[in-house]
């Protein structure tokens, strides 16, 4: 009996409180959010020639090596927007201290595609600017290959260099 009385008291309290809550005047706040349109660029994969032999040229292909050693950039932004891509100041040598290793880029060593696996690339000359259109999902992938030419007397070591990719919306 006591237990029934206790449950009745609790139930009454809940209903009373609920009623009080329902009877409160409505109040509201306004939440505003400005969706900013970002430009996201990532260097996903460095251009990596790995171990090379003295006197033996070594090349990385932008398409066949797309998933392994080719340089890869991912770009995301406004879907279907036009962007300009330009590799500024391509190096002609990689360095290791005072030593240098010749590197070259052909006129078809760069490519862009809306496929992340690097398929169906549109080739372009990495020493010239090009325009491309972001896919309907807002993505574009840029791949870069190249060739290093170690001499017969090339000093052992890790040779590195930097490639700069400049990107902008053309506003078109």
């Amino acid at each position, binding site marked *: 009996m006591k237990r029934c009385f206790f449950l009745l008291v609790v139930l009454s309290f809940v209903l009373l409180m609920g009623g009080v809550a329902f009877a409160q005047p409505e109040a509201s706040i306004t939440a505003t959010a400005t969706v900013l349109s970002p430009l996201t660029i990532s260097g996903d994969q460095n251009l990596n020639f790995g171990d090379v032999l003295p006197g033996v040229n070594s090349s990385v292909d932008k398409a066949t090596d797309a998933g392994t050693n080719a340089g890869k*950039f991912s770009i995301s932004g406004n879907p279907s927007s036009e962007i300009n891509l330009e590799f500024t100041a391509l190096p002609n040598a990689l360095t290791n201290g005072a030593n240098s290793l010749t590197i070259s880029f052909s006129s078809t060593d760069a490519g862009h595609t809306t496929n992340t696996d690097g398929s169906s690339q549109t080739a372009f000359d990495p020493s010239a600017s090009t325009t491309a259109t972001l896919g309907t999902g807002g993505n574009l992938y840029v791949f870069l290959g190249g060739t290093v030419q*170690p001499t017969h007397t090339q000093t052992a*070591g*890790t040779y590195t260099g930097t490639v700069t990719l*400049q990107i902008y919306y053309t506003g078109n």
Partner: protein
Amino acid sequence: MRGSISFLTLFIVCGLCPLYSQASFAPVALYLDNAHRSGYILADNGTEKAQEVSIEFVFGYPVSDSTGKVTIFFPDSLTGAEPNAAPWLFAYPRKFRLEPYQRRKIRFIARPPQNLPVGEYWARPIITSTETRKLLTGGDQPRGIEAKVYFQIRSVLALSYRNGPVSTGIIIQGISAKAQGDSLVLLLDMERTGNAAYIGNAILRFVDSSGSVKRSITKQIAVYYTLRKRFDIDLAGLTPGEYVAEFELNTMRDDSPGNILQAAPVIKSVALTIP
């Protein structure tokens, strides 16, 4: 509050990106004026590696070549007559280290000269981001030859500063067409009026003799002075006959709400025959 939610929105947007993302910047276009001389861009490092970030300002604006390819023209030398805002724009901080998964504001402040003539002034903020790397020491050097190329990224954004009353408009100077393979290439030549850039859309509707729209293409346009824009129409499936190519230019852009100068729509058509 509004800024906080904007920041949150960017965070959510960036959170959808893969974790190896290097750097995000938003918004990509910034508008200042003599009543609002500062603004900011959010930088986000979505990677587990720190980034060295630096900002510079240069003068530049979109131009097009004879084929309709659009690039940003960065003049090698300036005469002083250009609407160049770069010399009096400042970024805070100008150089910084963006730690892994860190987000921060880059504040832009305009300090224009006194008696600046009415008009719109332009600059391109260039944000350079480089992944920090550990320098190889003697003990790290391999016995063989190893070759690796690292990347640096330069994101070129847009900034406009409006001083006093500004307006924009556009004139279609001409429309030319030529067949190219299985496509019809239409070149639209435009010239901006007023004292500010025309930011908008160009809509092409390719209409047959019965009035039916057979093709429709919408492209964004940014006309700072003049611009040639290219439209490719796939002719596959179009029967020979008379057509009308109708171009509509408007300023109804949703990528920068509240900042796009509005102008009345402009429509112009040309008749074409597909043999």
